[in-house]
């Protein structure tokens, strides 16, 4: 494999490359203060499709209102099963990390955890899709997807779900996958695709006019919540996405009627200008 084969989605957002992001916005820039000052995400529901969220973790601030786990069906031709997870556990720590980041930006937003880690290759794409379908059906305003599927067989399913979400006013925020090859739904136009930048600040984000990855957010050496009430320092696009999900929750809290298209536009118009 050659180095050129790597997508390096974070590349446009690192310090010595950021000048390439400079541009005139067609409708001009928006003042952040008018949009974000005093915004707390109240009235917004954010779904976190991940490894689960620990309800009692201090980083989640008691905002987890529902927790479900998606499981493989008994027979191949049946739908995946979505059942309540009354214990609200996180089998890894990763979902709690994402929830903690979203809560730190949008403290009044309600959180829903959809645990979708499948047991094997056969099931995980279907479980992930079923979890996303369920979250859209729950009326979530924002869905954080710090994971993706590479299965070609899942392409039409995720494509359909991305459209469904878009038309249901549900914004999908998807972590770009820093590995070669396609991954869904992070590369679909209807989602907000996010890679990490290297500025240690949750309030710094960049807009990249050259898709597929449109936003760069804090994702390097982020102090995150982890399993068992713990915390660690982490790096990855996984942790950049929930920063944008948190910002989107703030926008949706202020403008509940804002469409995914408008939220994306606001995020672009309030993004940091590269120095």
């Amino acid at each position, binding site marked *: 494999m050659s180095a050129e084969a790597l997508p390096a989605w974070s590349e446009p957002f690192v310090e010595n490359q950021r000048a390439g992001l400079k541009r005139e916005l067609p409708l001009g820039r928006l003042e952040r203060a008018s949009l974000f000052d005093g915004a707390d995400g109240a009235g917004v529901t954010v779904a976190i499709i991940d490894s689960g969220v620990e309800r009692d973790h201090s980083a989640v601030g008691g905002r987890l209102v529902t927790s479900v786990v998606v499981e493989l069906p008994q027979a191949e031709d049946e739908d995946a099963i979505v059942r309540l997870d009354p214990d609200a556990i996180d089998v890894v720590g990763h979902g709690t990390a994402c929830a903690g980041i979203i809560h730190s930006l949008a403290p009044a937003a309600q959180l829903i955890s959809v645990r979708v880690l499948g047991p*094997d290759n056969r099931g995980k794409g279907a479980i992930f899709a079923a979890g996303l379908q369920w979250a859209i059906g729950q009326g979530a305003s924002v869905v954080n997807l710090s994971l993706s*599927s*590479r*299965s070609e067989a899942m392409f039409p399913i995720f494509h359909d779900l991305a459209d469904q979400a878009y038309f249901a006013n549900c914004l999908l925020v998807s972590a770009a996958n820093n590995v070669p090859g396609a991954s869904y739904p992070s590369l679909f136009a209807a989602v907000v695709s996010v890679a990490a930048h290297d500025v240690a600040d949750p309030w710094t984000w960049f807009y990249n006019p050259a898709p597929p990855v449109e936003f760069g957010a804090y994702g390097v050496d982020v102090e995150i919540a982890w399993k068992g009430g713990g915390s*660690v320092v982490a*790096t990855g696009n996984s942790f950049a996405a929930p920063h944008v999900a948190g910002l989107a929750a703030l926008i949706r809290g202020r403008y509940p009627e804002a469409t995914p298209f408008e939220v994306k536009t606001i995020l672009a118009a309030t993004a940091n200008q590269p120095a």
Partner: protein
Amino acid sequence: MSPAGPSGDRLSVDALELLRAIARRGALARRLEDGVERALLRSIVEATATLFDAEAASIALFDPGRGQLVFEVAAGEQGQGVIGLAIPPDQGIAGYVYSTAQPLALSEVERDVRFGRGAAEATGYVPRSILAVPLLDERGTIGVLEVLDKRSSATFSLRDIELAGVFAGQATVAIRASRIERDTAALLRASLAALVQPEERATVEEIVRLAVTDQDRDDEGRLWAIVDRVARLRAADPGELEMLVEILEVVARRAERRSDQRRRSGRARPAR
């Protein structure tokens, strides 16, 4: 075995194509014996550990039979304890990266008491930092490459994640080659099944088993030579198909003989 009569339609073009593929792949597979694959993967984790100046590096592969992620190779003194460790594919950092194909770097993990205890119990070593990237082929994730404790820095950078991805790509290429060997069984089964009557499936299974499990290198070589001859009949005319039948009868007789020998010597293996 009394194979199907030599009718051209039974001996489908597809089946012959498959046999030809087996012959090609069989020759490749023999060069990729288990020891070679392992050595290749080990060289990849060793190169990874050296390049990152890391305490350890390891590769875990998903074992569909066990339904677990199993650590196959490791580099670095601190990494050896992890070899053979099997974990559920939806738990832990390796499980997360396997399940989501999302690379991940964690540091200051020793701060997390639960994490440290779990790692120490499992491998005898508590890392301070972990970088895990997925091994991805066209169809999905097949495993995870982990790097533990880069000595020059307390954390891993975005560059590190991308670089580890390159090594993971190399490992995937090596593994894909070795999996061709495993595919051989499926190919052989499919193509032989197309040549025989349904009631002779047991014979097919025996041939497949011989082809993929027999440790007798000489015999295996001969079996592949037969398969190779079958494959060369790709352009066979009806007269030559008679010969094909004879060849398969030879294979079947040999399979029977070997299975008798095994029964007598108590080496019979349970049918898979």
